[in-house]
C-alpha cells in the first residue's frame, strides 16, 4: 500500500539512494507477516464456520476493529518517535463520557459539533501528555502512566455512578455504527480515512518523516536541525485527537458510557501497534501496519469464538503473537543491517 521511509539505528545513511530502494523493499516485509497471519486466520475460520464471513459477520469484524484501528494509528505515531502513550484508554473513557453528557445536556446538538468537541477534549489531554514529556524531558512511559491514573480518576470523579445509555443519544448518532456504505459501516469508513490521511502524511511530508528520524536517533535528529520537541509534541497531540475521535465513536457503537469506559485498552493498542510491525524502540514501522495489527488482534477474538475454541486461549495467543512480532522484527532488522553492510562494502 505505502512505502515507508524507515531507518534502523544501524543504518545512518538513510537518505542514500541505492540503499533506500533495497531498504524499502525489505521493510515492506514488516507488514507482510501480519497481513499473512490475518489472511490465514480469516480463511481458516471461514472454512470452519461460513457464517464468519456472512454479511453480519463481516460487519461485526469491521466494527470491532474500528476503534482499535484509530487508537493504533495514533499510538504508532507516538511509538515511532521512541515514546509511548499509556493514557489512551483513559482519554477514550473521558471523551466517551463527555459525549454522552453533551447529548444528554443539549438535546438536538448537531452531531458534528459533538465530534469536534470530543476531538478537542482529546487534543487537550494529548497536549498535556506532550507538554509534560517534551518540557520536563521525562520518559513518556512514566508520564503517561501518571496521566493514565489521573485521567481515569477525573473520569470517576466526574461520572460517579452516572452512565449514559444508547437511548439517551439521537438515533442518527447510533446508526453511524449500524448503517453501511458498500458493506462498510460508516464509522469504519471514518477509520479508513484516518489511516489513509495519516499514512500519506507520514510518507509525504517533512514533519512525518522527521518522526522516523527522531525515533531512530534523537540526538542526531536534533543536530540535524529537526525541532524534536515540537514534533514529539505534535505526535502526542495527534494521538490525543485520535483517541478523542475513538471516544466519540465508542459512544456511537456501545450502549453505556461511564466511569470505567475504556479501561485497560492501552495494552491492546500497544500490542496492536507492535504486532503490526511498529518497533517499540522507535524509528520504524508504519501506521498501515499498526492498523492491520489492530484488525488481526480483534479478529482473533471473533475467530476463536466462531471456531468455538476455548476463549481462555485468546489472551495467551495475543501474548505469543506480540513476542513473535518482536522476534520477526529483530530478524528483519539484522538482515537489513547485513544487507546494508554488504551494499556499503560494494559502494566502497
Amino acid at each position, binding site marked *: 500500500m505505502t512505502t515507508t521511509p524507515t531507518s534502523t539505528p544501524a543504518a545512518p545513511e538513510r537518505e542514500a539512494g541505492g540503499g533506500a530502494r533495497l531498504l524499502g523493499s525489505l521493510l515492506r516485509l514488516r507488514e507482510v507477516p501480519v497481513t499473512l497471519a490475518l489472511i490465514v486466520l480469516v480463511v481458516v475460520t471461514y472454512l470452519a464456520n461460513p457464517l464468519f464471513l456472512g454479511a453480519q459477520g463481516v460487519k461485526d469484524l469491521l466494527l470491532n476493529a474500528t476503534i482499535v484501528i484509530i487508537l493504533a494509528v495514533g499510538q504508532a505515531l507516538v511509538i515511532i518517535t521512541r515514546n509511548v502513550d499509556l493514557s489512551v484508554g483513559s482519554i477514550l473513557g473521558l471523551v466517551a463520557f463527555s459525549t454522552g453528557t453533551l447529548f444528554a445536556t443539549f438535546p438536538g446538538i448537531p452531531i458534528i459539533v459533538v465530534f469536534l468537541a470530543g476531538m478537542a477534549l482529546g487534543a487537550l489531554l494529548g497536549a498535556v501528555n506532550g507538554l509534560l514529556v517534551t518540557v520536563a524531558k521525562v*520518559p513518556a512511559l512514566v508520564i503517561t502512566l501518571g496521566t493514565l491514573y489521573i485521567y481515569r480518576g477525573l473520569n470517576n470523579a466526574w461520572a460517579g455512578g452516572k452512565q449514559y445509555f444508547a437511548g439517551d443519544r439521537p438515533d442518527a448518532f447510533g446508526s453511524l455504527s449500524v448503517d453501511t456504505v458498500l458493506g462498510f459501516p460508516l464509522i469504519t469508513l471514518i477509520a479508513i480515512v484516518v489511516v489513509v490521511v495519516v499514512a500519506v502524511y507520514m510518507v509525504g511530508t517533512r514533519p512525518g518523516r522527521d518522526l522516523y528520524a527522531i525515533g531512530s536517533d534523537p540526538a542526531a535528529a536534533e543536530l540535524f536541525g529537526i525541532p524534536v520537541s515540537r514534533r514529539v509534541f505534535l505526535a502526542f497531540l495527534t494521538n490525543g485527537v485520535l483517541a478523542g475521535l475513538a471516544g466519540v465513536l465508542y459512544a456511537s457503537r456501545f450502549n453505556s458510557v461511564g466511569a470505567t469506559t475504556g479501561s485497560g485498552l492501552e495494552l491492546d493498542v*500497544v500490542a496492536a501497534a507492535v504486532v503490526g510491525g511498529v518497533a*517499540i524502540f522507535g524509528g520504524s514501522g508504519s501506521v498501515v501496519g499498526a492498523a492491520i495489527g489492530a484488525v488481526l488482534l480483534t479478529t482473533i477474538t471473533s475467530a476463536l469464538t466462531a471456531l468455538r475454541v476455548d476463549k*481462555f486461549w485468546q489472551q495467551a495467543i*495475543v*501474548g505469543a503473537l506480540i513476542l513473535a512480532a518482536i522476534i520477526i522484527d529483530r530478524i528483519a532488522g539484522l538482515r537489513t543491517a547485513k544487507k546494508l553492510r554488504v551494499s556499503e562494502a560494494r559502494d566502497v
Partner: protein
Amino acid sequence: MSNTVTTTPALDTSKTLAAEPRGRTGAARLLLGRDAVMIYALLAFVLYGMIAIPRFASPVTVGFLLLDVIPVLLIALPMTLIIITGEIDLSVASIAGLTSALMGVLWAAGLDIGTVLAISLLAGVAAGAFNGFLVAVVGLPSLAVTIGTLALFRGLALVVIGDNAVANFPPELTAFFTSKLGGTGIPTVMIGVVLVALFFGVLLHFTPFGRGLYALGFSKEAATFVGIKVARAKFWLYVGSGSVSALAGIYWTLRYSSARSDNASGLELTVIAAVLLGGVSIFGGKGSIPGVIAGVLLIGTINFALRLGRVSDVVLIIVTGTLLIASVVAPSVFEAIKRWQHNRRLRRSLPQVPASGETNATAPGVQERK
C-alpha cells in the same frame, strides 16, 4: 540528552555546572542521599497520620497496612535491580496470577500442599527465565518482551484455571498468612519479606555484582569493558524477578484464600509507580533498596490513610498519578530553573563575552526546556 552540558573551560563555569562527586559510599550515602529523604518523607507522613488521622495510631494499622503492601513490597525489590540496569519487567503481576492459578488447580487435583508450593514457585522461576532468555540472550527490548509475556502469562493463567476459583486451602496455612507476631501487629510473614529484602539489599549495595548493575545502567559498553557479564547478569535478574513474583502470587492466594486467574492483575503499574517514587531512575543507573522500600511504604500508608478517612478510591488514583508525575517532573523543572539562573548569572558576570560561543552551546538545551 547528555550533550547539553557543554561549557567553555576558559569561563571557569565548571564549579557550578559540573557534577558533584557522586562517589559517596556506604553509610554516608544511605544517610544523605535521596533515599534518606524518602525515608524522612515516610516518617513525616506517618507522624502526620498519627496526629491528624483518627484511629491511625494503632498496632492494627501496622498489621493491615503491611498485609496490604507485602505483594508490592516483594515485587518492588527485584524490579529495583532491573530498572537500575535500564530494563523493565511488566510481566510480574501476570507471573503472580499464573502462580496463583497453578496453585489452585494443583491443590484441587489433590496434590500435597508442599508439592503444590514447590511446583508453583518453579513455574515462577521458569517464567522469569523465559523473560530473561528473550531479553538477555536474544537481546530483545525488555519493554516489548514483557508486554508480550504480560499478556501471555495472564493468558496461561486463564488457560490453567479458566473461570474457576479454588478456595479450600488448608485453614492452618491461610491463618498463618494473616497471623501477627504477638501484640505488635506485625504479620508473621514479614519475617520472610525482610529476609528477601535483605537478600536484594545486600546483593545490590554490598557486592561487586550489585555495583556492576549500576555500571550496566549507565552504559552497557562500559560495563562490558570493566568485565561485567551483561547477558548473564540480566538473565539472573529476570529469574529473580520471576521467583519473587511467584512468592507474591503464593502469598496473595493464601492471604485471600482464593486462587483465581485475575489475582494481582494490574499490580505491575503499582509496583513501578512505587519504585520510581522511591528514587530509582527510569533511565537506569540510580536508585537504592532502602529508598524503594520507603517509597512502597509511603504509597501504602497514604492509601491506608485515605481508606481510613473513607475517601473514595478516585482520590487515591489521582494521588498516585500526581505523585508519580511530580516525582519525575520536579527534578527536571528544578534543573531547568537552575540552568536558567546559571545562564543569567553567566551573562551578567561576563558581559564582554559575545553571545556567539557560550550561548550557542547551551541555548538549544535551554530552549527545549521552556
